[in-house]
């Protein structure tokens, strides 16, 4: 494909469908951006400006057409402490730094590390995210006037029942409009979005964060910025993969990583909080027919138009309506099939998933949850790979020598089992250990072979190792010592 054709395919596969999908996304995004700002502890305008900036920038800079990025729950959860202790300006500075990290990650192609994040960890990630989004709604549901509860119930009823009759209009929007109208009409005394902080009144303006540019500031924002960068890339690349699957088209993960960084830097400069790709909104976009970059761009532009036109009405939205939408978002984010799969999947996968969820919910930090999940899946994998290892042996006719044939993987996790498989009580003159069908992966494995040889020698048995060079080619390759024997080999002869 020529560049021009690729550009056309990425931007305008179907202009009408993309504009409509972008419109649906913008409408669905307003309540979410407000709610995520409230989770982060900043004014709603911070999340709304961020969503506009990120959508517009990522439409050009992103590597995955039709993916929606904006202010997200995952990012909001990470920044809570920083905002509470140091305030908005430090959050904006952290957003800039997060963007820098993400651009570096894109340039260094760190996205390849995503392959170590297994499916179970990803499932744990989205489940934890859903639980945290739901938990963040609890303050709006506890210690409020009784009228809140019926309003949330009505909101949820509209959101879930309306699509059975028509899928032409976004049902969360209908819920919000009706509940807002009812609250205004009947003069119901409930908390509204306007009570939660400032809403956008003007176009976002360029302004660098008002923080002292010194090492002390860096020390404050560095941990949050790093976590933001990691969480943002995790969710973005995960979402990109989902959109890839849905649309059966490829994406450029490294361009997406750098694009997220650029989008965050722009957001930070225009008074917006850090954001990333949104799983739910991206699914909504594809479901509504969005396939091109235009859908993302229009989503962002239309979002701003709506805010400028309807700013005063947005202020009147009761928090109850917002809570209903966010409950829908958390229910939609949760991978319910994973509960059913608990009974079917290997227990190791379930443990990885549950551990990711548990750690995340306990720490409110998705990065830590994912780290634990990745670690656990690594351990479980090593444990399984260690079982791919077998030793068979034959005694010679005269009963004086025995040949051990080793096949499979010898590494740190299987080294102990390797040593234990030799019968050292058997009095033989000569032992032959044939490792040509095995892989010697690491120094632990080399040391294990060494140990076996020493033990045999102490019993007065002569040992010969066959095929060590073939078996340890991985190790040699890594150490780059092709001209010599493997590290411990001289001791063996």
């Amino acid at each position, binding site marked *: 494909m020529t560049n021009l054709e690729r550009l056309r395919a990425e931007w305008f596969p179907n202009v009408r469908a993309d504009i409509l999908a972008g419109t649906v*996304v913008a409408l669905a995004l307003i309540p979410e951006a407000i709610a995520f700002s409230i989770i982060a502890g900043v004014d709603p305008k911070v999340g709304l400006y961020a969503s506009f900036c990120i959508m517009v920038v990522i439409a050009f800079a992103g590597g995955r057409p039709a993916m929606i990025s904006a202010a997200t729950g995952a990012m909001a959860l990470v920044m809570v402490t920083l905002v509470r202790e140091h305030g908005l300006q430090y959050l904006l500075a952290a957003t800039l730094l997060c963007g820098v990290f993400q651009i570096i990650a894109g340039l260094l192609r760190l996205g390849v590390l995503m392959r170590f994040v297994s499916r179970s960890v990803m499932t744990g990630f989205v489940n934890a995210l859903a639980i945290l989004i739901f938990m963040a709604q609890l303050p709006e549901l506890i210690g409020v006037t009784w009228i809140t509860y019926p309003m949330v119930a009505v909101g949820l009823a509209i*959101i879930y029942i309306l699509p059975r009759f028509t*899928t032409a209009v976004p049902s969360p929007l209908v819920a919000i409009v009706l509940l807002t109208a009812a609250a205004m009409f009947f003069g119901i005394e409930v908390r509204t979005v306007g009570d939660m902080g400032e809403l956008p009144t003007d176009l976002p303006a360029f302004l660098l964060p008002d923080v002292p540019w010194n090492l002390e500031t860096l020390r404050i924002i560095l941990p949050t910025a790093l976590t933001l960068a990691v969480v943002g890339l995790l969710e973005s690349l995960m979402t990109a993969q989902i959109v890839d699957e849905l649309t*059966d088209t490829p994406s450029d993960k490294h361009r997406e990583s750098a694009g997220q960084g650029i989008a965050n830097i722009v957001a930070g400069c225009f008074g917006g909080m850090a954001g990333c790709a949104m799983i739910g909104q991206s*699914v909504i976009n594809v479901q509504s027919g969005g*396939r091109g970059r235009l859908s993302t761009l229009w989503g962002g532009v239309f979002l701003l138009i709506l805010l400028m036109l309807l700013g005063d009405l947005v202020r009147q939205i009761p928090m109850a309506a917002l809570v209903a939408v966010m409950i829908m*978002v958390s229910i939609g984010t*949760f991978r319910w099939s994973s509960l059913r799969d608990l009974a079917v999947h290997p227990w190791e996968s379930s443990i990885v998933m549950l551990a990711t969820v548990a750690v995340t919910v306990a720490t409110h930090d998705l990065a830590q949850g994912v780290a634990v999940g990745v670690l656990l899946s690594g351990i479980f994998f090593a444990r399984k790979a260690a079982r791919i290892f077998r030793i068979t042996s034959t005694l010679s006719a005269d009963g004086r020598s025995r040949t051990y044939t080793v096949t499979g993987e010898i590494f740190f996790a299987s080294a102990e089992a390797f040593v234990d498989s030799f019968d050292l009580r058997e009095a033989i003159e000569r032992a032959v250990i044939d490792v040509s069908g095995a892989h010697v992966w690491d120094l632990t494995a080399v040391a294990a072979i060494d140990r076996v040889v020493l033990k045999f020698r102490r019993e007065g048995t002569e040992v010969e190792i066959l095929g060590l060079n073939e078996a340890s080619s991985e190790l040699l390759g890594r150490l780059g010592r092709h001209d010599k024997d493997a590290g411990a080999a001289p001791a063996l002869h």
Partner: protein
Amino acid sequence: MPRILACTDGSIYAESTIDHAAWAARALGAGVQVLHVLPRTPAEAPVDRSGALGLDRSEELLKELAALDEARGRLALKRGRAILDAAEARLRGAGVTEVRLTQRHGALVDNVLELEREMDLLVIGKRGEAADFAAGHLGANLERVLRSSPRPVLVAARAFRAPARCAIAHDGSAASLRMVEFAARSPLLEGVALDLVTVGSGGAALQSAPAAILEAAGRPARPVLLQGETHEAIAAHVADAGMDLLVMGAYGHGRLRTMILGSTTSALLRGCRIPVLVFR
């Protein structure tokens, strides 16, 4: 055994493309590999603007979209099969024994570039299914293949007529001389009457070297000196003298020209109603 790659689709050029390939295969004693490429056209998405996220919506949506694509994909495969089977029958009927059928996904040009490394000649219709007929443009696929193909490309005309008279358009360039070498020794032009065509005032001087090459190979060419706009002059000669085949270079002068395919080349391809053998 030389190999010919013939690209076909459901367009009205499909049959004549196969006929051209059959002619070339007989002349060269070559085997023919017929390629049909299934373009990727994403399915119309189900319209759902409810904006609501149900339980495991992404997985459900994936199933829905996959089911849609599956049905279309099956249909396209079947249709492609039928096109290829028809091509095979036509080739065998024309006496070609070595026929291979290949069905691939993706863009035509990518697949052609991948396959033609082992090929000696490429045959493709002047326009494909996707081309805009009203505009008289070349097919976009053809332009791209010509731009990037290192092998000679035989561009099939709408109807096939076994070539008896062939015009060789020569401009003195290195690529042009390679083309003359090919014309001199290739069995493809055995027994075909040759015209060596040059355009412009320096034409006579340009003719000596290629004429000698052809003479030495025992295929003397009739020298033709034309005046005027290159593509108009050649197109007029080809029509007036009743030529059945034009051999020419897709000359690129400099990087930009290489990228956009010489304008003379595309003008000639558009203007001539006979098959054109294009050299890079």
